[in-house]
């Protein structure tokens, strides 16, 4: 084909591919980093020297994770069932340095903790170190078994079967921490995902986000199409002034309207309902503006012909303008969906029960006042992005055209 000849010589093509590949790597890097961080322990996630392959994706650790998981519960997801004993072996160079101190930590500020109270701990000496035996003497099953071990520094080098999630120096001891010593393979690799999923009701958050974004797009499209058509194709007195007024409202930052809108919603008793999440965003000036420009670009003759054939405005809108404006509608739809899906401040202010909160509000759970839990934050972000990525694969063409057409991101 003629196009193929135009692409030029082999070195030239190689260069192009090289540049494109480099570009792709640069663009994909943050995504890789998110995925890698989502399987890191908190200590790994906070290291400045980048860790490209976190411990949890080293296959050599999976066998140990499976064995420990099987001892406590199941090979895949681990757990700690009644009557089971989990044995963790730690090799040390100099066992004479002293017996390590072992503890099952408690969750924050609980009055009683069945897990640590019903777990008996035995530290058994072996030829090359110590085996920590943890037995569940109670009658409850636990999903995780966290552990803290203080290893005397004189013991010199040590190696735990399952690498600890954190190693810290504490005076004369190394303090080793595991988030779960009975993880199973999936429980080990996907630890952050499981924790993140449990940290907040993400199933419900997804539902609320999708219903909100879906209805905003559907309702927004309907209203914007009708308004845009009126502004583009119907002559009425004061049309330009009215349009100018509409566009002028884009100049007012949303934060200014936050409190008045909140009061209005409170008076309507709409707080903490889907109405509050959806209704205020149905009429989008941006959408009206975008579609109006689109309708204006359609040839006049089409509408003249329709009028000669006796079409009403309504008929012209739905039979002629609408089908021809699909690319514009898709563009607006994508923006409206992403805007609704990514909205944070508005949903945070107008809702308060967990049943009405959106996925972006849910992600806040991992940001603390003096630091963040990056592993879990990235795991939750991956879950939040997944639907958008899947949607992107299905609607790739429209996405690219939509963004390219509007010229903005």
């Amino acid at each position, binding site marked *: 084909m003629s196009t193929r000849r135009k692409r030029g010589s082999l070195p030239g093509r190689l260069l192009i591919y090289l540049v494109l590949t480099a570009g792709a790597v640069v663009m994909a890097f943050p995504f890789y980093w998110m995925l890698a961080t989502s399987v890191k322990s*908190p*200590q790994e996630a*906070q*290291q*400045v*020297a980048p860790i490209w392959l976190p411990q949890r994706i080293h296959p050599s650790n999976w066998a140990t994770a499976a064995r420990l998981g099987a001892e406590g519960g199941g090979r*895949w*997801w681990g757990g700690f069932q009644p009557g089971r004993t989990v044995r963790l072996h730690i090799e040390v160079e100099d066992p004479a340095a002293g017996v390590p101190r072992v*503890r099952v930590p408690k*969750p*924050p*500020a*609980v*009055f009683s903790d069945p897990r640590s109270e019903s777990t008996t701990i035995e530290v058994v000496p072996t030829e090359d170190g110590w085996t920590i035996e943890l037995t569940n003497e109670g009658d409850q099953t*636990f*999903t995780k078994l966290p552990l*803290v071990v203080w290893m005397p520094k004189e013991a010199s080098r040590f190696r735990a079967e399952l690498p600890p999630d*954190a*190693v*810290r*120096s*504490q*005076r004369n001891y190394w303090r080793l921490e595991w988030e779960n010593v009975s993880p199973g393979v*999936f*429980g080990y690799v*996907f630890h952050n995902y*499981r924790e993140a*999923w*449990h*940290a907040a*009701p993400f199933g419900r958050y997804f539902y609320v986000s999708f219903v909100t974004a879906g209805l905003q797009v559907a309702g927004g499209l309907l209203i914007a199409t009708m308004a845009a058509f009126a502004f583009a194709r119907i002559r009425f007195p004061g049309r330009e002034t009215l349009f100018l007024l509409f566009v002028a409202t884009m100049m007012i930052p949303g934060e200014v309207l*936050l*409190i008045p809108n*909140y*009061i209005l*919603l*409170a*008076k309507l008793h709409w*707080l903490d309902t889907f109405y509050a999440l959806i209704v205020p965003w149905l009429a989008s000036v941006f959408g009206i503006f975008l579609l109006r420009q689109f309708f204006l670009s359609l040839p006049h003759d089409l509408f003249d012909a329709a009028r000669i054939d006796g079409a009403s405005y309504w008929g012209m809108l739905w039979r002629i303008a609408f089908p021809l404006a699909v690319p514009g509608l898709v563009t607006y739809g994508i923006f409206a969906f992403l805007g609704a899906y990514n909205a944070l*401040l508005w949903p*945070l*202010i107008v809702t*308060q*029960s*967990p049943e009405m909160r959106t996925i972006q*509000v849910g992600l*806040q*759970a*991992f*940001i*603390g*006042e*003096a*630091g963040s*839990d990056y592993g879990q934050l990235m795991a939750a972000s991956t879950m939040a992005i997944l639907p958008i990525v899947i949607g992107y694969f299905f609607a790739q063409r429209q996405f690219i055209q939509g963004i390219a057409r509007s010229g903005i991101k």
Partner: protein
Amino acid sequence: MKKSVWILAVVALASFALAQQKAEDVIKAQCAKAQVVAELWHGFRGGAPRAALENLAVEFNKMHEGEGCLRPINQGGYRDLSTKIKAAFAAGTLPAMAQAFENNIALYLEADALLPLDGKLEYLDQLNPLFVNAVKFDGHLYGLPFNKSVQILYFNRDLLNKHGVEVPRTLDDFIAAAKKISAAEGEPVYWFRPDTSTYAYWFFNMGGSYLHDGKLVVNSPEAVKALETLVQGVQDGWAKPITSGYINQNFGKGAYGFSTDSSAGYSYYLKAAKFDLGIATLPGNGEHPGYGLVQGTNLIVFKDVDPAQQELALAFLNFVSSPKAQALFAAATGYVPVNLKAVDEPELQDYLLDNPDFQVVIDQGNYAVFEPAIAEWEQIRFDILGQAIKEAVLGKATPKEALDKAQKQVEDLLAGKIR
């Protein structure tokens, strides 16, 4: 291939379903049955503080089964929380209680929205008097100090040992120690964030005070001296400004020796540090530890809400300020126990056994200072004073120039000339 994916998905879902019940769900069930529900709007987005608060609420609700239920509701971060409270105040949808900084309290008092707590706190005489004083306005008590963190000295014990340096006790020792190690390491080892908090440590311990005869002064001679010390430290190579992220997020980028930072970051510091991280009370004047800036919120009760909810709110205040609850809360979160008797509780003793350094936080709580409790303080601290400090540290203005400019802005703001 496809089959295995499905199996994986099913296994994943099944395991999620087997989850243990969350505190949030327990509270929801407790409140569904209760006749009176008092809401507590808070700014703990997640992590240990939120978990600890929810676990305490579960316990409180168990004790008050049949009478009422306390429901903690997160409203984002502290700034989101105060935005929402302002909106709710205008709309008349206030909760029974909320978290509030001292300057928030001053603002809410302008609208007369708070219930005075005089004579209503059972454990008042056991509470840290410095913290209690900060929530007294015109002689009345308007809050219960709740999650309080205090500045402490963080240090790298391994690095100090390597250079044979003792943990500094006075400001002069501190600067000398930082200079000595920095010279030996060839890079600055005192790391600081150029913000109002770090600056406050130097300012207060050089005898500074923000209020002079009821007037807010940010360019006093002590203020200029404190800022000059920091700027000089950067120029002399013993102090390094950290402008991106928290200090603990920069571990590994060079030699870390000291920082003067909030105790709220202790658990994050611990997670990030591979070296032996030590903490100590702040270097002061030699006679006693230095003064540490207190941050964190108080619990307030709103005035115009249902009396039954208020009663429940007061009961919760008494519950969370009890020695036992404070011991649990402090051990879980690293906040300073506001009840001085908490340290005698077995829960905190037990925690101190594993984390002996935490005693430092308790001790530092007795040498605490506060920033001025005026409604505009938040804006001043971030947008005016904070900017001035950054400009001076980054060399865009001299400390004197930057602070004089800030003083002018503060006066304009307080006079209502700017917003």
